[in-house]
């Protein structure tokens, strides 16, 4: 965990020179599109189109096409929203918090993880947007002077959420883009064809690696990291307020903000892991995203997974200790009631699975971490499902209880959102520098200027 120059050689393997780094990262975007890419993209794009089509049908028919029914007015759409926002958190954590801690090994994975953040937050923003019932007046959440003479209710957590996730998306996008400008300039300088030179030229803003520019640039990135760190902690806290400020049993709890943030980082790292394991193999980036990087990520998964496990225990303890019979009931109902299958799926995936990473050998085994990362994301989806649905289904009045069952459209939209996410990600891998080349060059042993 040291950041001295002596650890440099372990960060990037394979005797890299500046030029070999440029080549390895640029050539992915420069060679002819591989057949495999077309195959994967057409599949994911098909799913994304399915998503778009089902949203069209939703607008036409209304939210009744989902399994929503009073008392469960928030079903899979809100589950998916919380799930996708959570996925995004790892990207910001890697790019911002590890930058502030001067963890220089982050340079290999930050670009990648930030891209994942952007695409996950796009998926996340869609769900509450289409869930509002009348999406064509979604602009009412903006505080703009209008002929009705009213303003949005600033005391509502749902409005806080709009501001939090909107800010999160904007800041993440800016952070990602600013970080990419020097690498876009690299692609511009290597471009042979006119169109390519023009497009990368426009997006690289005329960047020329000048030290008068680097001075402001480095401070800008540092400040953005400093802003993104409290922001990322606030975003999932605010998302948790959607629940915690409500008085539904099982929601109304002060543990929610830290519990949600830990879960978000946990699931986000699992998603980075899934994508990184595939991408480094397919694109031959093993020298940049080394087994050491993956091991460090597994340690973070273990730590945050244990924090999530602690939260589960604490939730039960608080329910019991509150002396409130509704809280006690819902805690028992989650474990033994109609949604017990979801609860125990969550426990197995989120509490038991990450514990395998205590063993160094498993922590460094690619197949093990790949399977574990997928299981963790299944578990984290179920965590949100348990929170959203089980509390609503069995609140104070037994006469209004109901069992939520998803419809065909619920399933299609969840799968479709993965299609959108993966389509964007595959496009990113094809056209943009997936690893921060200039940052990697800065940690090569020969870059030391003393």
């Amino acid at each position, binding site marked *: 965990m040291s950041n001295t120059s002596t650890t440099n050689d372990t960060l990037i393997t394979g005797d890299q020179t500046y030029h070999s780094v440029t080549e390895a990262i640029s050539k992915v975007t420069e060679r002819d599109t591989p057949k495999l890419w077309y195959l994967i993209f057409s599949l994911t794009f098909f799913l994304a189109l399915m998503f778009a089509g089902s949203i069209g049908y939703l607008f036409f028919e209304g939210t009744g096409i989902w399994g929503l029914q009073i008392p469960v007015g928030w079903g899979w759409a809100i589950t998916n929203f919380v799930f996708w926002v959570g996925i995004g958190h790892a990207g910001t954590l890697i790019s911002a918090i590890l930058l502030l801690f001067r963890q220089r090994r982050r340079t290999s994975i930050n670009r990648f993880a930030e891209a994942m953040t952007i695409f996950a937050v796009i998926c996340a923003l869609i769900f509450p947007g289409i869930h509002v019932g009348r999406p064509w007046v979604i602009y009412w959440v903006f505080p703009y002077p209008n002929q009705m003479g009213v303003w949005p209710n600033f005391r509502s957590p749902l409005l806080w959420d709009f501001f939090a996730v909107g800010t999160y998306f904007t800041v993440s996008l800016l952070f990602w883009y600013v970080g990419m400008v020097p690498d876009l300039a690299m692609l511009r300088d290597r471009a042979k064809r006119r169109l390519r030179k023009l497009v990368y030229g426009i997006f690289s803003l005329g960047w020329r690696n000048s030290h008068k520019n680097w001075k402001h640039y480095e401070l800008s990135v540092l400040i953005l990291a400093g802003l993104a760190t*409290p922001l990322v902690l606030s975003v999932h806290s605010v998302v948790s307020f959607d629940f915690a400020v409500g008085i539904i049993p099982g929601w109304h709890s002060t543990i929610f903000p830290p519990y949600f943030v830990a879960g978000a980082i946990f699931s986000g790292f699992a998603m980075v892991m899934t994508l990184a394991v595939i991408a480094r193999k397919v694109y031959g980036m093993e020298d940049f995203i080394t087994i050491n990087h993956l091991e460090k990520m597994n340690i973070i998964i273990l730590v945050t997974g244990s924090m999530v496990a602690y939260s589960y225990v604490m939730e039960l303890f608080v329910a019991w200790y509150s002396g409130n019979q509704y809280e006690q009931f819902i805690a028992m109902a989650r474990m033994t009631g109609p949604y017990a299958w979801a609860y125990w799926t969550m426990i197995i995936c989120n509490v038991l699975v990450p514990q395998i990473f205590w063993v160094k050998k498993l922590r460094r085994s690619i197949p093990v971490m790949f399977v574990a990362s997928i299981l963790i994301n299944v578990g984290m989806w179920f965590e949100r499902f348990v929170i959203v649905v089980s509390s609503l289904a069995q609140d104070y009045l037994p006469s209004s209880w109901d069992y939520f069952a998803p419809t065909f459209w619920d399933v299609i939209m969840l799968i479709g959102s993965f299609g959108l996410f993966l389509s964007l990600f595959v496009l990113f891998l094809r056209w943009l520098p997936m690893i921060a080349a200039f940052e990697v060059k800065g940690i090569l042993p020969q870059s030391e200027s003393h």
Partner: protein
Amino acid sequence: MTEKRTYGIIAEFEDSQTLLQAVREVRDAGYIHFDAHSPFPIHGMDEAMGERRSPLGWIVGGLGLLGCGGALLLQWWTSAVDYPLVVGGKPFFSLPAFIPITFELTILLAAFGAVFGMLFLNQLPKFYHPLFYADRFEQVTDGGFFLSIEARDDRFDAGQTQAFLEKTGSSYSEIIYEHTSESEEEEKPEEGDRA
């Protein structure tokens, strides 16, 4: 055909250490309008160039305060003045409930300051720059280390400055010209001197 204006000289160096050393010598020789270009920010370059700390923090701080104050003002005025409405029995100006949005807008505006302030200070986007016409300058995003001295510097003299740069250890240098629309027909300046 119009006369070409000289922009300055660019010189290439072997690696970050020699560039850093050359920058120190150029500064000690009294040059002011010079710049270093490298594939990644070099640690210690600001001190070597005698650059002052970036004022970006002031822009960010100012906009952050504006975001914070603006958000509070917005929520106070809409909820307590323009259309007072009792929600959940809370006071019209219910500060705790207004904190999340105040926080988010502070961050949002501060981040705008960090990004657009940086672009403003760097005078970007700037799609034309004489340096882009230097023969080897596209190496700078790959693995090249360059030092440029502008002709507007008082101490600049094409011949002497070039000789001076060679002495500091540059492996290649070239005189750069401004490219006006009239001179655009020619791709390269004909007297691009090689050392």
